């Protein structure tokens, strides 16, 4: 059996682009409304999920994919109700397993546009294994991780991303769990596309959704999403007018890292990032220039994870941290199937007969 060759797979990537998307003539007439199902949306009033749903429905017509070729797969949690509200194909599955189900679907039907909607509990606790495996396999699936740092559906227990000390129903004395860093985990799992955005910044959210869709491979989009009931304001430092410019660092490929309305920038000393004032002494050219293909720098950016006021504080990055295409699992799988078939398609009778037979008269 010939070993798998990544080079051959790259070719397969090019060949596997199916013409399905081009086939449908009435795509142009689709509007965001066409992507809204007839089901009543039942999140709490003020939930960040509404904004995300709206932006996804807004972006969908722009992607040029017939609705029947789109599948939303979710697990369990508030966010996982998402597929019911999309008038596409959809599976609301079981806790933590959406990434595994989406993987099987994508292997079987690579031509479909597969989206996973998951939360911090769903994919970073019970489903972490499938989550990291999907990232390393790099199937062409978009993973929208709604991170609200709390369990909402079960009425307010701390989640793997909840900050230390948070008082919840299951941690009346404050949680003693150290929080997980989702994007550092994703990068460690060999994720090929890693991005972060916010429910409140709708334009940024839409742009990142489009980038995620364009990327050929698993794209992880962490979306900071406010839970108004159980963890209200968890991301206020990054979303509120008064604080966000000081705390948000928007990443753009090829551009210097600048924040605080252009008053501050970030310089790299070796591997150590330093915040510098842009008061004329420091040139923009001396700043850290964002490069989505630089995994080492992406790794440092995922470490910008401390809250404002803490000792190693750096502004929180939003945007595409890392994006580098490599061969996709489904293409490699098809490549092996095609290579085997080229040597001769399977013959069921020959298989059943086997190599050694004998006849009794």
């Amino acid at each position, binding site marked *: 059996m010939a070993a798998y060759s990544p080079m051959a797979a790259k070719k397969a990537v090019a060949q596997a682009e199916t013409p399905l998307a081009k086939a449908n003539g009435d795509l142009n007439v689709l509007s965001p409304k066409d992507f809204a199902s007839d089901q009543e949306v039942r999140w709490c009033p003020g939930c960040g999920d509404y904004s995300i749903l709206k932006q996804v429905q807004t972006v969908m017509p722009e992607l040029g994919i017939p609705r029947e070729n789109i599948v939303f797969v979710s697990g369990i949690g508030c966010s996982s109700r998402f597929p019911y509200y999309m008038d596409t194909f959809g599976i609301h599955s079981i806790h933590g397993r959406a990434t595994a189900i989406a993987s099987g679907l994508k292997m079987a039907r690579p031509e479909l546009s597969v989206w996973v909607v998951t939360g911090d509990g769903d994919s970073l606790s019970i489903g972490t294994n499938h989550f990291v495996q999907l990232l390393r396999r790099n199937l062409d699936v978009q993973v929208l991780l709604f991170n609200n740092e709390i369990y909402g559906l079960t009425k307010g227990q701390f989640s793997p991303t909840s900050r230390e000390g948070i008082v919840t129903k299951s941690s009346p004395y404050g949680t003693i769990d150290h929080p997980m860093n989702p994007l550092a985990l994703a990068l460690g799992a060999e994720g090929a596309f890693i991005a972060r955005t916010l429910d409140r910044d709708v334009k940024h959210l839409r742009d990142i959704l489009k980038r995620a869709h364009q990327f050929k491979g698993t794209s992880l989009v962490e979306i900071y999403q406010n839970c108004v009931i159980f963890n209200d304001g968890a991301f206020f430092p990054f979303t509120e007018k008064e604080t966000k410019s000081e705390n948000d660092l928007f990443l753009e490929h090829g551009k210097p890292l600048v924040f605080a309305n252009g008053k501050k920038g970030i310089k790299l000393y070796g591997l150590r990032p330093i915040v510098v004032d842009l008061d004329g002494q420091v040139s923009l050219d001396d700043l850290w220039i964002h490069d989505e293909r630089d995994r080492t720098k992406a790794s440092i950016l995922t470490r910008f994870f401390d809250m404002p006021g803490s000792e190693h504080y750096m502004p929180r990055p939003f945007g595409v941290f890392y994006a580098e295409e490599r061969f996709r699992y489904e293409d490699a799988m098809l490549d092996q199937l095609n290579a085997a078939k080229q*040597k001769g398609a399977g013959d069921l009778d020959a298989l059943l007969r086997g190599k050694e037979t004998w006849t009794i008269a």
Partner: protein
Amino acid sequence: MNEVKPAPHLESRDEVTILFAGDSGDGMQLTGTQFTETTAIFGNDINTFPNYPAEIRAPAGTLAGVSGFQVHFGSKSIYTPGDQCDVLVVMNVAALKANLKNLKNGGMIIASSDGFDAKNLDLANAKTNPLDDGSLAQYQVHVVDVVRLTKLALEGSGLSSKDMERSKNMFVLGMLYWLYSRPMDATIRGLQEKFKKKPDIAEANIKVLKAGFNYCDSTEVFGTRYSVQPAKMPPGTYRHVMGNQATAYALIAASQKSGLPLFLGSYPITPASDILHELAKHKNFGVRTFQAEDEIGAICAAIGAAYGGHLAATTTSGPGMDLKAEAMGLALTLELPLVIIDVQRGGPSTGLPTKTEQSDLMLALYGRHGEAPLPVVAAYSPEDCFYATYEAARIALQFMTPVICLTDGYIANGTEPWKFPTSAELPELTVKFAAPRDKDDAKFLPYKRDDLLSRPWAIPGTKGLEHRVGGIEKQHETGNISYDAENHEFMTKLRAEKVANVAKTIPLQSIDSGREKGKLLVLGWGSTYGSIKTAVRELISEGYDISHAHLRYINPMPSNLGEIIYNFDQVVVPELNNGQLVRLIREKFLVPAIPYNKIQGMPFAVSELKNKFTEILNAKMSTKEAK
């Protein structure tokens, strides 16, 4: 086939059982497999039982490391690997100690003297050497210096001493071929194939094989040579097949016949991994095998593939079934077709991972939360793994449901001759996906049902069928979320009725051996088939009033099973567990079915079953006489 010159003292035998035993690194499984292949091609009926330790390389020379391969072959019909063996081949002291109890009185021992040195005696905790302390007086013992003879045969081959020694199992095989008058050509072909890339190793093995054969021919180490004539089997073309292999073939066959690509999601686990290994080879059939990160990932990926319109399967063993339970419930309520193969092994927990047991029956039936009935079928022999799996696929596709197919370690690793079918002989599997719809068509109802209550298979990519499915209770027909009390009860009963409807599509239960009516019915399921059949047939020929029926369909059961049971005074249910089917029979048919259980990781011996059955029959007689 080679013509074999008849030896001077040639005796004929109807049936022979040989047990090859040695360290797990001694190549006993290969030796046994080769003997099986040759014997099957020779035309004997045959049944085998590989019995190996859980550790791949348990400490050499110890009792824990003993690996065995039992072959039962004959000129008559053979349904079991044999209770006790006629010939015990042992490569060391531990192999002898572990298996002597399985040797018939007066049976033959072929011992490799190299494995009986001081070190091996010590490793096996033997105070004296059994080969010369007189303890084997009631057996015919042949001590052969296999290692020295192997090395002599390979003198000048340039192989290292260690490599030479590796061929010693072929010397023993050659001796057995001589003893039972077998041709060697199939093994020679097999070795050439196996060591295609190492022709020197192939050549060495063949040389040693022939040396073993010739050693017997020239030294007259055995006074007598035996012949076992080909069996009178139904005419046709045969091959030999192993259970796991048959399961894999059935999945490919179902894929080909249904026109659906096959998707297997699986995680390595003994004794089911061979199905994954086999399917991974057949990419030319378009088979997608996905080795997942865990058992849950494996079944969930299969569910995703099923949703996408593939024939999806997941293969596992006991612990994997536990892990997959929640996902099975999802597939059940989504109503997607899925074949779940459980190659049962000793439990609970890790239990006896390499030994057989039938202890997952209740798990298969009831091992999910909520009201979650699934069709369950059970294979009864290596070749039946093919038909049972094919049926599981048929039911899954026809009824849009996961189906559990139970096999077990014994039949999964066991081999037997198989009068294999042609693809044309296999039942057709017709699958129709829900058709595309236009805007003006009525709204698509994903849970609208046919006569048998199966729902449409609406795959993504089909225009106008956009809809959502999920684990939350669904409204009848629309599939929308519904928390309505009456709807939940209605849907629960509807799902159960759908599974019950499977009974309308399966054959009626038949009696395998014996009369339709009588004193004692032996009702078995799964891998106990061969032992029960042999025991019942022998008792019938001894004049007992006993019959045998064997269940392949556990849920739902064939509709006439009650009638069959009520036609007998008593029913006994032998099982390799602590009594599972027997409870179902008692509950469903309100009869005092008698349990007969063995939980030793080993199949029933025919003699055990005969003793139990005659005990029941004689007790019944004496009660009647007392009246």
